[in-house]
């Protein structure tokens, strides 16, 4: 990867500037400027554009720059114009495979007075990738893109200033940490270390959660659950018994109720029996009355009954005699009737023959007899005129009485038969009052049993309902605990898996750091020897990084010269180390050096180092920011000899307070 162009607008010393790294400057470019001319501002412009931070402390001829807002302050006379101004850096890069990208960061500032500048809003970062068909297309997550292609952690190893170069191998006891850190960061092995650390924390968290889960209430809840289930089963058995009792009581009640029906039938039969007996008695009474009436009637009306036929017979005889002429005409039946009624004897005075008289006498005698009898009857029974009617009535009444008696007798027999039949039926069924009372008592007991069973059933059902609610709640809690247990299993599995990952991360970390250290050490040796051979001949036999990350420089004579290097040699070692890191990193990084040779006093050495660097760039872009004397003494000649063009020069215009690039 190389930087093709850097555009700077309203940033620090730059009002508007553009650095193009094309043509002869495509691979090696030098930018020369006095202190305060804008070299460090350019470095900061690069880091601010990529990471949003300024990494280097700049200087002016009068000292270090104050951390003022990064917006260009404008001309000394006029200062900033009131209003809004945008600081903007744009870097165009090209990858080795030809892909091109533009990275642009900008920040809006509000200028309210000569030295009153405030940022407005957040910095805005854009990354645009050039495609063959659609031109530049913006990247959705520009920060992420930069993190993946130019991670901030490796920045210290591709943008180096004098201080940084001096720091690497200073024998202050911390050089091992710096070297180790550099190797870890440039190779991103530190990410594995971070993964390892964070996995450790994750594991601790998982173990803590495991501990919490292991102390769950499952055992207690299970015990409570079993207790509730036992109580529920007891209650269910009670309910079952109560239901059985209830069913039995209901069956008893139904049976007894049915049998009570027999009781009612019995009562009905007894009633009928009693009615039959009463009816029989009544019939007997009525029969007695009727028989008495009959006797009385007969006694009273018997004579009439007896006489009436004789009277009728006599009347019939008289009528016959009359009709046959045997009785004188005057003697008319009516007369006889009158005679009967008035009891007259004068009928004998009319003129009758002897025979007639004789017969008549007989009749008279008979009549007299009858009359006498009739008179007696008359006296006894009343007028004889009603005798026949009374006789007929008598007969009718007598017949009616006889019929009534017969009927009563029949009814009496019927009642008796019914009574006998009922008694027979009662005896057949064995229905007795005592049994019926016992039955009633049983029915009462059955109802009481039903009430008890109903109450017991309701209580059992209520208890069961309560227990079921409790069981549901415990089941719910148990499910939670069981889920926790399942999660515990999951946690355990995750802890095991985390352990496996930690173990693998550890191994990858250890192997990679060893492997990378060896690679860096070999590259360092390679670069350093090339540099040193050009300048020091065979003075140094090699350079290396040992297992403890301490740098070593093997000098002729078998001694370690790492701590005895001159300033220039130190810079060479640092540059070689930087080159080595770049080779091993895997990133196609440009190498941007700010005043790398100021500590090298020997311009020959400076030229040799420069030449060696150029010879060993291995396609890596080199951007050199140098002070004029640094450039002039050791670099310019080498570059010009190599045909790498003239340097870009930075001049700070005091009037406009602006750096001018030429």
């Amino acid at each position, binding site marked *: 990867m190389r930087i093709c162009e850097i555009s700077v607008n309203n940033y620090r010393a730059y009002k508007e500037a553009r650095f193009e790294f094309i043509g002869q400057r495509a691979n090696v470019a030098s930018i020369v400027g006095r202190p305060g001319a804008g070299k460090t501002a350019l470095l900061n412009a690069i880091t601010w554009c990529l990471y949003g931070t300024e990494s280097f402390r700049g200087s002016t001829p009068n000292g270090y720059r104050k951390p003022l807002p990064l917006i260009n302050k404008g001309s000394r006379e006029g200062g900033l114009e009131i209003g809004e101004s945008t600081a903007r850096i744009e870097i165009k890069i090209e990858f080795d495979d030809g892909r091109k990208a533009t990275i642009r960061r900008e920040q809006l500032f509000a200028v309210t007075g000569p030295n009153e500048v405030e940022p407005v809003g957040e910095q805005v970062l854009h990354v645009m990738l050039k495609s063959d068909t659609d031109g530049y297309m913006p990247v959705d997550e520009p920060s992420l893109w930069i993190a*993946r292609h130019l991670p901030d*952690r490796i920045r210290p190893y591709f943008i180096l200033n004098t201080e940084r170069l001096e720091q690497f191998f200073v024998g202050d006891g911390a050089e091992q940490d710096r070297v180790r850190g550099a190797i870890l960061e440039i190779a991103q092995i530190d990410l*594995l270390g971070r993964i390892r650390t*964070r*996995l450790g924390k994750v594991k601790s968290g998982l173990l803590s959660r495991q501990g919490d889960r292991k102390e769950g209430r499952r055992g207690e809840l299970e015990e409570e659950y079993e207790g509730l289930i036992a109580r529920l089963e007891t209650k269910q058995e009670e309910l079952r018994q109560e239901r059985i009792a209830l069913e039995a009581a209901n069956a008893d009640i139904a049976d007894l109720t049915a049998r009570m029906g027999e009781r009612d039938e019995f009562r009905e039969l007894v009633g009928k029996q009693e009615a039959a007996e009463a009816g029989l008695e009544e019939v007997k009474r009525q029969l007695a009355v009727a028989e008495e009436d009959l006797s009385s009637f007969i006694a009273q009306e018997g004579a009439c009954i007896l006489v009436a036929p004789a009277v009728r017979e006599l009347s019939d005889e008289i009528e016959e005699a009359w009709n046959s002429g045997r009785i004188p005409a005057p003697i008319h039946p009516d007369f006889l009737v009158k005679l009967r009624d008035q009891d007259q004897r004068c009928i004998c005075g009319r003129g009758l023959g002897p025979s007639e008289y004789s017969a008549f006498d007989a009749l008279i005698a008979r009549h007299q007899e009858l009359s006498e009898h009739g008179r007696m009857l008359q006296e006894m029974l009343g007028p004889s005129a009603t005798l026949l009617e009374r006789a007929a009535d008598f007969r009718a009444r007598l017949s009616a009485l006889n019929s009534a008696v017969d009927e009563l007798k029949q009814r009496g027999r019927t009642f008796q038969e019914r009574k006998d039949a009922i008694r027979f039926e009662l005896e057949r069924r064995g229905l007795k009052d005592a049994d019926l009372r016992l039955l009633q008592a049983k029915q009462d007991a059955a109802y009481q049993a039903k009430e008890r069973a109903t109450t017991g059933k309701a209580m059992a059902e209520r208890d069961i309902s309560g227990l079921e609610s409790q069981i549901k709640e415990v089941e719910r809690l148990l499910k939670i605990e069981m889920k926790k247990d*399942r999660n515990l299993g999951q946690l355990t*599995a995750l802890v095991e898996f985390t352990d496996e990952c930690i173990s693998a991360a550890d191994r*990858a970390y250890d*192997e990679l750091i060893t492997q990378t250290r060896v690679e860096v050490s070999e590259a360092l040796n390679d670069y350093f020897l090339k540099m040193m051979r050009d300048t020091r001949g065979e003075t140094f036999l090699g350079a290396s990084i040992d297992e403890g990350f301490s740098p070593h420089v093997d000098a002729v004579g078998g001694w370690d010269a790492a701590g005895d290097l001159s300033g220039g040699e130190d810079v060479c070692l640092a540059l070689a180390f930087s080159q080595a890191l770049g080779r091993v990193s*895997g990133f196609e990084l440009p190498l941007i050096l700010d005043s790398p040779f100021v500590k090298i006093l020997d311009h020959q050495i400076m030229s040799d180092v420069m030449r060696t660097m150029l010879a060993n760039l291995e396609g890596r872009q080199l951007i050199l920011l140098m002070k004029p004397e640094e450039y002039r003494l050791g670099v310019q000649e080498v570059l010009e000899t190599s045909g790498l063009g003239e340097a870009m020069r930075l001049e700070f215009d005091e009037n406009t307070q602006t750096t001018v690039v030429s």
Partner: protein
Amino acid sequence: MNRKIVGKIAEVAGSEEVKEALNALFMFEVDQGSGGFQYSAEYEAILDKHMPKSGPDREGVTLT
């Protein structure tokens, strides 16, 4: 360098799941930059996602 680390992870990982989990964690770290935040939840989610899912205790259970 990413390829080197990914290759090393593949070399040392005892299982495909471990390899995938470490790769995911590595890319997660790359994407997060150098921020000093705590990523326990994200780490746990990545581990859970790549963990073998066989076995009764590992089915149908979420950690959160």
